[in-house]
Structures are given as C-alpha cells and as structure tokens.
C-alpha cells in the first residue's frame, strides 16, 4: 500500500495503484448519511438484501444474514427498499415498516 498522505514527490506517478485489491483499503462507509438497521428477530434470511447490496456490505455466514459491514455500507437504502418482510414494531426504530429500515447516521 502506498504511504498514506504521501507528498507529491512520494505519490505513485500517474496515480497508478501498485497493489491488487487495494480498494478494500478505501472505507466508503464515511460517505454515509443514513444507515440501515436490521431486525434480527423477524429476518427470514431470504438474502434478497444481500443480492442487491451494490457494495457487498451485507455479511452472510452459512446462508444466514449476520451483519452490515459499516466500513463499506454507503447507506444507499437499496437493502431497505428490496427487503420483502414487513414488521409492525421494528427492534431498533419501533416503527412499522420492513426488517431493514433507514435511520439518520449518528441517531
């Protein structure tokens, strides 16, 4: 990995990235203004949210929903939009809606 905050003399010429897979170092989670929250009790583990997440930010283990990866989740809300399972009283928001709901970042 190139040195962080390299000076212009140290930075790679032409912006070439010399290591493969280095985009993993780029934590896009800082872009988020809203974050998805999940109701683990009601989730059916259909994984529709996992299929649709454009940032591979939904962690699945053994075919089951495990967590959001907030290092990379940009808060786009696609998972909340596609989740097919309705809830009356969400574990985190206590709102009626879906298993995944969006809340303001920091709330």
């Amino acid at each position, binding site marked *: 990995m190139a040195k962080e905050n390299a000076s*212009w003399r140290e*930075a790679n*010429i*032409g*912006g*070439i990235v*010399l290591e493969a897979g280095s985009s993993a170092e780029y934590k896009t989670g800082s872009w988020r203004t809203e974050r998805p929250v999940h109701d683990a009790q009601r989730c059916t583990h259909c994984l529709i949210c996992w299929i649709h997440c454009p940032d591979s930010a939904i962690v699945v283990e053994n075919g089951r929903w495990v967590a959001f990866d907030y290092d990379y989740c940009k808060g786009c809300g696609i998972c909340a939009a596609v989740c097919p399972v309705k809830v009356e009283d969400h574990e985190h928001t206590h709102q009626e809606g879906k298993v995944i709901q969006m809340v303001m970042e920091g709330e």
Partner: protein
Amino acid sequence: MVMATKVALDGAHAVSEAMRQIDPDVVAAYPITPQTAVVQRFSQFVADGRVNTEFVAVESEHAAMSACVGAAAAGGRVMTATAANGLALMWEMLYIAASMRLPIVMPVVNRALSGPLNIHCDHSDSMGARDAGWIQLYSETAQEAYDNTIQAIRIAEHADLKLPVMVMQDGFITGHGVERVEVADDKDVREFIGKYAPEHSLLDIDNPKTFGAWDMYDYYFEHKRQQTDAFSKAMPIITAVGKEFGSRFGRNYGIFDAFEMDDAEMAIIVLSSTAGTCRTVVRDMRKQGVKIGMLKLRVFRPFPAAELARALSRVRAVAVLDRSISFGAHEGAGPIFMELCSALFAAGSDAKVVDYIFGLGGRDIFPQHIEQVVHDLKEIASSGKVKSQVSYLGLRE
C-alpha cells in the same frame, strides 16, 4: 556515418515513414484532412506486413485516443495521428493520456479549427491543446517532421518524463508539399529508439496494478504537481536527445533555432513552415545592414522561457508571429506572444514585444508581410514606442 536514402516525400508521408521504422505495437487512428496521408500510408504498411503493428481502425478520434490510452497502459509503444477537429474530438482523452503518464506519440498536421469550415493550415488546433499536458514539438519541414517523430519516442518514454508528445507540421504547406527527405536506415532508427520497457503495465499479470483509478481531493493535486515537475525536467532531456540524434544522423536539434541572432537588435519569433519565409527576409535585410535575427521555436511545451529570455537579452524589439488567436486574451493576442511576454517580464527585460496574427485558415504569408514586420520593428527599436500591440498580416482591412 549512417546509411540514409534521399527520397521525395511530403511531410505526411515522411511521418508515416518514421512510423514504419518505429514499428509501434499499436496505432489507433481515424483519418482527417490533412493528416489522412499519414494513416493511409501507415495502414498500407500494416496490410503489406511491413510492420508488426496492431492497427485499430476506430470510429472517431475520441475512440482513437481512448484505444491509445488502453494500449499504452497495457505497456505498448503507441502512436496515432490527427489534425484540427479530430484533435478537438480527442480533448478529453488528451488530458487522460497525459495525466496517466502514457508516452503516446502523435503527429499533428496543423489545420484550422472549424468553424467556419476550413481545412487549411493554422495552429488553432494544437495551440488549443497546449495546456493538456503534452510536450509539443513544431517542425518547419518534412525532414524535421520525420526527425522530430523519431526523437519524440525517446523523449516521451524517458523514465523521468513519461509524457505524451505531439509533433506538429503545417497542414498542406508541409504536409502535402513534396521535399527531399533523408530517410535513415531502418536499423539505425530502431537502434536509436531502442526497445520500450515500461515500468508498469496492465499486461504484467504477475504484478497486477490499477491504472486511471479514482483520484480525489486527497491526491489529484499531488499528481498534477508531478506532471508539472516532469515538464520542468523535459528541456535538458529534449536537448540531449536532439544532440544524440545529431551525432548519429547528422542533423542537430535544440530547443529553438537561432538565425542571425549574435548581434541582433531586433528579432522575429516564429513556428513551423513560416520560418522559411522569415529566414529569406532576414537574410535579405542583413545584406542591407539591418540588425535583425530570427528564433524558430521547436519546443513550445514546455515553453523555453528562460532560454528565450537569454537569447533575447540584448534585443530591443521583438515581433511574434502567431498563427492562432487566444480569443479574449489581451488585445486578442496569440499564445506565443503571451508566453513570451510573461517570460521576458519574469526575466526583467524591457524589450518591446509586438504580436502579428497571420495565416489563419491557410491565408498565404508573403515575404512582403515579413518585410513590413521588420519595418515596424525598426521604428519601435528607434522610437521605443509601440503603435499597435497586436496587428494582422494579410488581412483585408
């Protein structure tokens, strides 16, 4: 001395000869007058199996430069050629090629930018691209276009530069004018340019890398500073390559060509084919005892500010001949005038500088026009007064 063959070639064909000898890995190009002959002849070389080049016949100049960028990032020695509106269509990719530090070499056969529609020579095309991050070499003759194209490979690929290079010649005047051109032996040219060994390449699959990645406010600025740093190293490299070319092929190249400058009190600065007309006038004027000299610029990017200020340090009046206009600039001046004025100002010179716009859209320039310039310079040198900062040669008033 090396083997060379003297042949009758126009400037465009002289450049395609150079391209044949360079034998690039990839040429992606689209035809446009007056560059067409370059690519047409080169594609014939490809069809006849005389080069090993992968020729990509693209659907536009934007695609041509895009393909060149990809091929150069893949580690190839890459060339294309264009003119005028074709160059304009490449605009976006010109900047990308330069900022990715891809040493692409591109002959440009200068032609006026439309509109109104015109296919003849002026420098509005390449001058418009002067801030794109390409080195720019201008050629007076077909011979110079040939020689500059070969040298451009060495300059572009130099490890300290990694900058793309444009090699200009005047459309029709040089591009279609047949001259005697010394074509060097293929082997000598190949020895001179050497093999290209890119430091990084996309095809180096054992060491995968990313080219042209997202570059935010945290790094873009540093990469721009690196580009300008490369330009600051270019002049000695261009000079050294020109010297080495001279010792091998017998024709020396510097940053500019000084003619009758030793004791000159007045000077004309000019690019490309018009230098021939100026040289004749300067020679005639010298016979009449007029202390006039001429600087023919070869390298416009990087601009040889310090070198020009030094060459003009004893000159009292300077006339710049600009074959393009920077619309809205001071008095509607041309780019060479503005660059020269800032160079002389920075050097503390008190020489008077005037600009002459000429030859737009292929308008002829005659010795009488240059004589008029010398006449004006004499008046400025003796009175110290400038009547008109920017004038026009050959324009119907």
